[in-house]
């Protein structure tokens, strides 16, 4: 049987607010256990939540960023369940009336085509704490630093048909939220966690199959592998005439399998009801416009502008744009005088490679945008051959100064003076009579090949500084003069 995968995603995005969603505690990652938990976070008797307005603004930013409808009146609800790292015995979330309502997010696939994903909703909620199982023998520690961290849970319709689409969406989402500045998007620190709802159905069918939910997958690669592995599992069951159990599963990255999370098939009853300690969030058009005015240029618009304004191809634009800092770097190079196409090539080529090798972020690049622009200018004006340019780039990376200083210090200037080149060419011809004779006797195709020998000798004699194009022209002229 041929199966179609149907996938919907729920992303828990940690918002990069200074303080927690309902308390004044800081949200910095990595603090010592429980150092960032106050009486509110601990659920102490008599404590009350106070909504952090910044979290609301971030949620509205997100809604506007995907063109979604903003709920005029959204309400917090209590989601009730017992767990040691859930201090109040309920999580404050939004169930009945979310802050971000339906919208459509257009995800650019690699070929530049846009694939629309329907966003069902996005709602604000507080994160729970963390149970620490490995710090004490036979006991579990509770770290409530994360309790109360603002989350935006972003829910899609089941609009994905492949793992690749799901990952493309997640990458685009990651790009969007970092552009909006509402999240650091740091997946390793749990800033973006993904629940995957997945079911299979016969190709061509409209009905949805029974789904499973894979909880808490925290990297793009794991999302892709988890989907593939769950597809295999479900397809295997269905191919053998079995049926899928609706359940929550966990992805085990080491074994590359998903495992059932709960043995009991009891549906949780969270007993949602409106949180009486908080007022509804009322958002008017004026507020929405004030937030809209702060929106930066978003990835989609930037991609279009990069192709239109700088003549970049879709491929380069799609590589430059998702990382806000990289896109900014590119524009800084262009502003500093570097031509756009070579700028894109250098950034996506040598610079990215060097950054990756040294595990350095673009924002900490040892080669500044201005320096890279200086290098590109010297290539464009013929001062540097591409071979020399690589040397200069390495020197830039090593911190030896600007391109011009390096060229000067190392005497790397390309020789384009025709007089000087002419004498070099003549000297090489004079020194290699046998090769000249061979060249003259050969047919045109062979001549082309043999000319490489002379070019090589000339470049060697010039220590690589001869302008190769001019050398080629002069050489051809002089060789033909010999006949």
């Amino acid at each position, binding site marked *: 049987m041929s199966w179609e995968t149907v996938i919907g995603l729920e992303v828990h995005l940690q918002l990069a607010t200074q303080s927690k969603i309902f308390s004044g505690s800081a949200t910095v990652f990595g603090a010592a256990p429980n150092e960032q938990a106050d009486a509110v976070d601990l*659920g102490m008797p008599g404590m009350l939540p106070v909504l952090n307005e910044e979290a609301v603004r971030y949620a509205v930013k997100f809604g506007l960023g995907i063109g979604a409808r903003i709920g005029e009146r959204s309400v917090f609800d209590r989601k009730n369940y017992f767990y040691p790292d859930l*201090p109040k015995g309920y999580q404050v979330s939004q169930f009945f009336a979310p802050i971000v309502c339906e919208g459509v997010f257009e995800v650019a696939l690699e070929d530049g085509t846009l694939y629309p994903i329907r966003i069902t909703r996005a709602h604000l909620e507080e994160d729970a704490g963390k149970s620490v199982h490995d710090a004490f023998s036979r006991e579990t520690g509770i770290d409530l630093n994360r309790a109360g961290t603002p989350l935006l849970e972003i829910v899609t319709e089941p609009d994905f048909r492949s793992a690749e689409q799901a990952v493309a969406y997640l990458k685009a989402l990651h790009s969007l939220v970092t552009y909006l500045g509402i999240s650091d998007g740091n997946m390793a620190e749990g800033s973006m966690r993904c629940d995957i709802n997945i079911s299979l159905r016969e190709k061509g069918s409209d009905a949805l199959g029974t789904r499973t939910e894979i909880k808490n997958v925290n990297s793009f690669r794991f999302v892709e592998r988890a989907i593939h592995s769950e597809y295999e599992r479900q397809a295997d069951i269905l191919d053998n005439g079995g049926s899928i159990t609706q359940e929550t599963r966990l992805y085990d990255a080491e074994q590359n399998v998903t495992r059932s999370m709960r043995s009991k098939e009891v549906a949780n009853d969270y*007993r949602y009801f409106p949180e009486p300690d908080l007022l509804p969030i009322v958002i008017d058009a004026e507020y929405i416009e004030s937030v809209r005015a702060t929106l930066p240029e978003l990835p989609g618009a930037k991609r279009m502008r990069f192709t239109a304004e700088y003549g970049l191809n879709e491929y380069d634009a799609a590589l430059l744009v998702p990382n806000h800092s990289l896109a900014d770097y590119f524009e800084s190079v262009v502003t500093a005088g570097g031509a756009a196409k070579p700028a894109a090539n250098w950034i996506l080529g040598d610079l990215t490679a060097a950054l990756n090798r040294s595990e350095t972020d673009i924002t900490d690049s040892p080669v500044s945008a201005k320096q890279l622009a200086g290098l590109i200018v010297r290539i464009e004006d013929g001062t540097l051959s591409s071979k020399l340019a690589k040397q200069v780039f390495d020197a830039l990376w090593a911190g030896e100064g600007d391109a011009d200083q390096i060229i000067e210090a190392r005497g790397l200037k390309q020789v384009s003076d025709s007089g000087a080149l002419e004498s070099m060419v003549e000297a090489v011809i004079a020194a290699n009579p046998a090769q000249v004779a061979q060249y003259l006797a050969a047919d045109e195709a062979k001549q082309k090949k043999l000319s490489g020998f002379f070019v090589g000798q000339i470049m060697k004699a010039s220590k690589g500084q001869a302008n190769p194009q001019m050398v080629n022209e002069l050489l051809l002229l002089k060789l033909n003069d010999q006949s």
Partner: protein
Amino acid sequence: MTDNALLSGSVSALRQQLRDRAVSSEELTRACLERIEACNGKLNAVITMCSELAIDSARAADKAIAKGDFGSLTGIPLLHKDIFCTDGVRTTCGSRMLEQFVPAYDATVVSKMKAEGAVMLGKCNMDEFAMGSSNETSFFGTVKNPWDLNCVPGGSSGGSAAALAAGMAPLVTGTDTGGSIRQPASLCGVTGLKPTYGRVSRLGIIAFASSLDQAGPMARTAEDCAIALTAMAGIDAGDSTSADLPVPDFHAGLNHDIQGLRIGLPREYFNDDLDPEVRERVMTALSVLEQAGATLVDIELPHSHYAIATYYVIAPAEASANLARYDGVRFGYRCDEPVDLEDLYLRSRSEGFGEEVQRRILVGTYALSAGFYDAYFNKAQQVRRVITEDFTRAFDRVDVIAGPSAPGIAFPFGAKQQDPVAMYMEDIYTLAVNLAGLPGLSTPAGLINGMPVGLQLIGKPFDEQTILNAAHRLQRDTDWHLARPQLEALAP
């Protein structure tokens, strides 16, 4: 000045004596502390005393007074219901669950009254987590009514009302979720005010039902309640539901003038179910107000009879979540040697909570469960709006609504304990006021068989001034509020 004069003086009178240096706060405070020590063995109204702290605060108050630097309550001794968190002073909420709980923070009410110079003597007994109308559900034992030691003081602020009536302090605080200030005030013959929902910050008050809970003062006069409310009220950045409205000086706003005041008498309160003697006392009090210039108007609150059912869905539902934090993990009671997590939860909560609290958690959990939410919680929310609209419509025609505070006088211990619904009926005249978020007060309206009866006055939202003023006038024209139990009989 005799001890008796000190122990039965009003806040406004004592305040004047303090300012005139006729008495020091330390003398007054010591008199109250001695009174507590003398009577508490019989009454059990106070759970925790903080004598040293009180003497220190009193001395500080005396110094401030000597410098002419005083707030509205400087030097006035005060007892807080043990539902208000007090920094460094044990706060139990009447529960085994919090028997050892010492908060590291003051409730806003506590810090505001402290800032006005009040001297905290200790913490008052109460029904466990404020769930009860007789103070019989407290883990710390029942409170006796100072008017008759065989009777309940009412609840849940029963310790506060009894302490006040017994002369332990001139001012006490309470909270009122469904009648918990007004009903014990009625049963103990004192004045108690439940302000409009949002008037007083809930921060630091241990939550029972968040959308209904409201703190207020209990005192010997309406005038004292006006002084105390002014000190307690106001927006609090720490409580999102506190109202962003200016707080008038309720004391300065009192003037005895009720000429033209329209007082509505809901048919549903004065029907055949009303005890004839209670009716007689309430009507007598209302006729005093009528003679002072008020008009009595027949009104309807047609959905009144839904109030109890509505309340007993919403309040337990909210409580079921509010009390989920008492799980034995971070603070509060933890069972011995739990074998696993479920055992920890199950036994900590079963052993830490009393029967009534468990009953309400179960009821609330049920009302919110999948499949029942619409039938119970959602329906109750709808009815709550209808009940509120009843009041809104009535207030188009009248300025104040009057009725009894409680269906009868204080009853003997155990009389209603086996029948939760009979107990819930105690709040039949008060619950709807909480559902609608309105201010209400109870003022003494005489005695039946030597036991106090209260008149309830209900005001428009945030119009505490009008009901305080009406009670103030009543207390000028009558002396019911001056009636005191036999204080001597209480001391050993």
